[in-house]
């Protein structure tokens, strides 16, 4: 009994400390939401809370003047199409590695995995020149084209496909399924949890990308993504922080929603899938 009360006290102390630290950790987000509701005048006094949470002027101005509506649409198209293409490429390659034996199989496999060893930032300048030579600057394709290859995703899918019993494919072949119909009707439906995780992660990664979209869309402001857009809402001369914070809030909504969904998914299926970028 005595021991039980001691653990109870220990646990509540630990919980309190943990929650306190947690609030400090997410404080920048709390600050951001509060700041977004401040009027420009209120923002001049650096208190945390706004007068009320009913002032929506910053959001309106960010969406209209800052053109964030357009940028949000740009980001959605880029993240959605980019993620889809990336997944399709990975599925096709993973299928070949899981089901076929061929010459140079290992070489091809390591050539694809080797792309993970080279950080994308190092390639920035040269890829920019390639994309400009292909006349893809300031286009959606130009922004997403460098993210079509994801060795990590290909690898995860290969592992998943390999764990599917071979009999399944043989049975499907006897039923007259070719490779594509087997893939669409059998393999992908049973791999749905992995596919969902990969899709969500990929979407967040592409949605959050900054440096590449910035340089590819540099000369055409209406092609910017939202992550580039929010950094253009202020300058050293004109700080406008309340506007910036409203823009940041808007940009965070999709990734926060997906993040919460992913956390729930991860609790169900372990965190194996969480390591892929």
């Amino acid at each position, binding site marked *: 009994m005595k021991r039980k009360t001691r653990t109870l006290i220990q646990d509540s102390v630990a*919980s309190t400390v943990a929650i306190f630290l947690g609030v400090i*950790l997410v404080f920048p*987000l709390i600050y951001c939401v509060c700041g977004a509701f401040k009027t420009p005048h209120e923002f001049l006094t650096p208190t945390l809370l706004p007068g009320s949470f009913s002032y929506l002027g910053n959001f309106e101005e960010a969406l209209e003047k800052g053109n964030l509506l357009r940028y949000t649409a740009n980001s959605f198209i880029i993240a959605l199409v980019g993620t889809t293409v990336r997944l399709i490429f990975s599925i096709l390659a993973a299928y070949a590695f899981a089901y*076929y034996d061929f010459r140079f199989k290992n070489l091809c496999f390591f050539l694809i995995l080797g792309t993970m060893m080279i950080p994308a930032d190092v390639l920035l300048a*040269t890829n920019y020149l390639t994309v400009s030579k292909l006349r893809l600057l300031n286009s959606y394709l130009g922004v997403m084209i460098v993210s079509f290859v994801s060795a990590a995703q290909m690898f995860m899918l290969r592992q998943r496909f390999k764990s599917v019993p071979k009999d399944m494919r043989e049975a499907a072949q006897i039923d007259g399924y070719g*490779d594509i119909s087997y893939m669409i009707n059998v393999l992908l439906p049973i791999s749905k949890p992995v596919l969902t995780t990969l899709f969500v992660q990929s979407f967040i990664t592409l949605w959050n990308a900054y440096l590449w979209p910035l340089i590819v869309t540099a000369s055409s402001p209406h092609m910017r993504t939202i992550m580039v857009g929010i950094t253009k809402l202020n300058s050293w001369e004109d700080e406008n922080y309340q506007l910036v914070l409203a823009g940041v809030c808007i940009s965070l909504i999709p990734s926060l929603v*997906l993040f919460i969904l992913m956390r729930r998914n991860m609790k169900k299926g372990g965190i194996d899938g969480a390591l892929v970028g």
Partner: protein
Amino acid sequence: MKTGTTLQHRRRAKTRKKVFLLLLPIMLFGIVFVYYPFIRTIVNSFSLVNAKGIIKGFAGLDNWAYTFGRKDFVLALKHTLTIAAVNVPITIIITISLALLANKKRKMSPLYEFLFTLPMAVSMSAACMIFKSMFSPSVGFINYFFGLNLGWYESKDTALAAILILTIWMGIGFNFLLMLSALRAIPEQIIEATKVDGISPLRRIFRVQLPLISPTIFFVLCTNLVLAMMTSAPVIIIMGVSSASSATNTLMSMMYQSGFSSSDYGLAAVLSITTFILTLGFTIMSFVFEKRKVHYQ
């Protein structure tokens, strides 16, 4: 017999064609957007490259000598190494401490686990804008709350520290999650055994739990090292062209400026390759260290 081999032959040809088509997209894009630019960047670093990125001749080590002789290169190198040397150990210490605190499952666990991991969902540019506002010397909350009078991102003395606070914050969520799942994967019996033996909690942490999660610590070390060496976005977004920007320039932000502001692709290539080699060197060093210190079960 003869028809059998032709059939087999034909089937093999068909397989080859299928495999080719399946691998074509990823291989094509991998070669065009990863391997080609990588080799081209190495070649550029030894070439005379004009402002349109076209090679105009062999330059030997001229680009390298020019870059290494620049004062701002030495500074950028110093800043990059400082960021890596400060960021990595602090991130590891913070995330291990939080994971140890959150390890035991309690009633409130879901709440603080959620809070600890939430920064994961925030993008670099969003975080930059929030921190820039929060640390603003005039209207920022930090100076007001702590009664400070610091310039943070706007002063040469504090800019690098402020950048470090931001990059460390960005890394906490994901790495905490890794540490936590590693700690929770330690078999219950081992912890119970230490309790039966009457080993103090502190000793248990340093002698049992940390050695057992050392592979994860090693993974966090390597990935964060690479990320820290590549730091550029905070410098580009927050510092921009402000007067304090020279106090935070990193190799990668200098690469960005030389490539996209001054179209000096030779300089940009040297900076890229230098960063790559340094990062690779550190990673190899960590693997040597890993052999001696990391325990795999």
